């Protein structure tokens, strides 16, 4: 258990020299508040991935329901969760920063959903509970990332986000394991899985309430005062830095093939056995977990936007391995998964850190929400387009098209990601 104490983080630096020292210190040590938020995410992911892991089994063997058609609602949920995310970001910026309050509501809503699963036994109601769970997730994402960015020194933000994402992924890996151990101890004990999941989620909310400071005691930024109209989304997008970052996230998101399609292609192209299939996401997650912190630190050194772009080159490499006919060996599968995991490690937290650089404190939550929603929406569009391309042309040609698109978008992003000359602060230039 990591414990955070806001009082140990340095106060607003008075002189440039102190700022630099504090910056170097923060770059080397992940702030307590970030570790606390990482712990909250770890615990919450254990809770939610426990449920995700047993849900199909529960529906088919526990409730004897036919889970087909469940996916039909996915599109609706995705649209709604994008909207919820924007709302969450916007609400969290109100009254000088209610990030903690909005995050608590989001985590709390998801926590309440776990015991509710004990009470509902029909597909529509289960779908409703899962939708509420996702609403909670949508609400909390932007304020949580805002809290991380506000609690860390600008110079160490990449590392801070990397640490958070590593802890988050560790939770996602542990969750299914915990669920399995419960079902091992108690055959058909789905109610026990949901109860334990609820308890774990409650603990996450409690850690958030107890150990994450509400009004960040972290260092103050030296941003120019924000005019009132800039707190709106439109105002945010008027800032060239934000506009260009969002454009890149959208552009690259449009050519990011969804995980499920990538795994499906991987299995088909490399002729993997069926039993490997459920293990593929674990491979990506393991690489993400191991690389998130080191790549976050690299991002602090070489520049977040540069690494964000390099991450997409790793994805391009994964596409390449799948397109070139090289026969099926486990080593190639591992290579694809490592590239896929590095892609996440070099882009997920790094994008949030880069966004934080470009968005003033007063609208941090909204800014993070705008960029992330843009990316998520673009990826959703990509998965629809990729599905159509797959149907029309087959997996290899579809992936070839995606790779070509990604290469073009990455090239187009190079000038967009170059830091703007006016009003850049020191950390922007890095």
């Amino acid at each position, binding site marked *: 258990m990591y414990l955070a*104490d806001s009082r140990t983080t340095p106060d607003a630096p008075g002189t440039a020299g102190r700022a630099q020292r504090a910056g170097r210190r923060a770059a080397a040590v992940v702030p307590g508040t970030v570790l606390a938020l990482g712990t909250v995410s770890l615990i919450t992911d254990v809770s939610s991935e426990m449920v995700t892991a047993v849900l199909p*089994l529960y529906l088919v063997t526990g409730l*004897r329901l*036919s889970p*087909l058609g469940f996916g039909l609602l996915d599109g609706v949920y995705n649209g709604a969760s994008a909207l919820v995310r924007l709302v969450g970001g916007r609400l969290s910026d109100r009254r000088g920063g209610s990030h903690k309050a909005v995050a608590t509501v989001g985590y709390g809503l998801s926590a309440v959903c776990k015991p509710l699963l004990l009470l509902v036994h029909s*597909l529509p109601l289960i779908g409703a509970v899962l939708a509420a769970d996702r609403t909670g997730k949508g609400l909390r994402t932007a304020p949580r990332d805002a809290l991380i960015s506000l609690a860390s020194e600008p110079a160490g933000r990449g590392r801070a986000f990397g640490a958070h994402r590593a802890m988050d992924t560790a939770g996602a890996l542990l969750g*299914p394991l915990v669920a399995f151990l*419960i079902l091992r101890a108690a055959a058909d004990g789905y109610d026990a899985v949901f109860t334990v999941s609820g308890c774990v989620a409650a603990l996450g909310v*409690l850690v958030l309430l107890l150990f994450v400071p509400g009004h960040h005691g972290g260092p103050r930024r030296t941003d120019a005062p924000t005019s009132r109209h800039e707190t709106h989304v439109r105002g945010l997008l008027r800032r060239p830095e934000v506009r260009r970052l969002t454009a890149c996230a959208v552009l690259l998101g449009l050519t990011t093939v969804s995980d499920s399609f990538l795994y499906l292609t991987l299995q088909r192209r490399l002729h993997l056995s069926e039993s490997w299939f459920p293990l593929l*996401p674990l491979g990506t997650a393991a690489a993400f977990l191991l690389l998130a912190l080191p790549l976050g630190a690299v991002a602090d050194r070489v520049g977040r936007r540069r690494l964000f772009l390099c991450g997409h080159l790793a994805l391009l490499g994964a596409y390449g391995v799948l397109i070139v006919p090289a026969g099926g060996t486990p080593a190639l599968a591992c290579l694809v998964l490592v590239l896929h995991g590095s892609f996440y490690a070099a882009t997920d937290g790094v994008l949030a850190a880069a966004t934080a650089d470009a968005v003033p404190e007063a609208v941090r939550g909204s800014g993070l929400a705008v960029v992330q929603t843009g990316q998520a929406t673009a990826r959703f569009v990509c998965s629809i387009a990729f599905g159509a391309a797959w149907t029309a042309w087959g997996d290899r040609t579809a992936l070839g098209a995606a790779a070509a698109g990604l290469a073009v978008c990455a090239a187009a992003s190079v000038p967009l990601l170059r830091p703007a000359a006016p009003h850049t602060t020191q950390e922007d230039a890095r």
Partner: protein
Amino acid sequence: MARLSRRNRLLVLVAAVLLLSGLATAATLHAAGRAAEKDRAQAGGPPVRSGTVTLDAPGRSVFRNMAWGPHRDEITSVSTADLGGPRTASGIRCLRFHTAAGTGICLQAVHGRLRDTYRAAVLDSHLRELRHYDLAGVPTRARVSPDGRSVAWTVFVSGDSYAGTAFSTRTSVLDTRTWTLDRDLEAYRFFLDDRLHRASDLNVWGVTFADANRFYATVATGGKTYLVGGDREARTLHALHTNVECPSLSPDGTRIAYKKRVQGASSDAPWRLYVLDLRTLRESATAERRNVDDQAVWRDGHTLVYSLPGDYGSDLWTVPADGSGKPALALKAALAPAFTGRS
């Protein structure tokens, strides 16, 4: 909260951890106790003894025994003439099972160290495993062709999306003479209104065989379900009729028993048991008015057997295929039946 001292915050945390872990432990122990209960035979339940189960002995009903006790989930046989009589358990556990002409297909769970996996085991008439194949998801349907040569199975696949809720089916067909396996029937060419139809949302499930090569199944695409006629050699699926799920071909090959999604029923329990005449495409309802979510089995040319939820998970019921009569309870605590020695 913010005003609590560090020591008090830790105290609150420790107290909460104790409380929550107590609750979690209690829930797990309760569920474990309930699971252990299921391993003890219940008074008044059907008598089950260990013994030899063969798939070519005539006049036997072979099924997954759901009655609590040490033989729960085992492939079990009972005399078809006396379904309430003593059951003989084989010691082989299956989630789904079917047999015809001495070939058995058993979809079973494999309990691993860190996770459970599933596999399809092809069995000979003495329930010896001939080959087994890893499965990508939770088993749902299994069938053997009347001559015992071809077998098919369907699983639900969901592991392909990170924290997603999208489910799909995967249906495989295996030739037990050549051991060629078509892993995914979605790779077959699907013809809708005699035109080749391409779609990424295609799902296939619930195979029922006419012979070793020809079969029927359900295809779902664009929010509709179709009865399809399939051909293993030609690798094709042809849509024949709409709104048909989990078809089951009659022994004479003229009718299909299936679950039909009926209008006005709750979205929770939308299916009724119907029979389709393949020549006239005329649908007729059976006397069973309850929701049926099963791939029915023909006990003979005029009786359907299907599963309904029961005290032990599932009971088997029968109803005449021609729409007459009334549903009747045939076997308590049983699932996935097959009837041997049928001509």
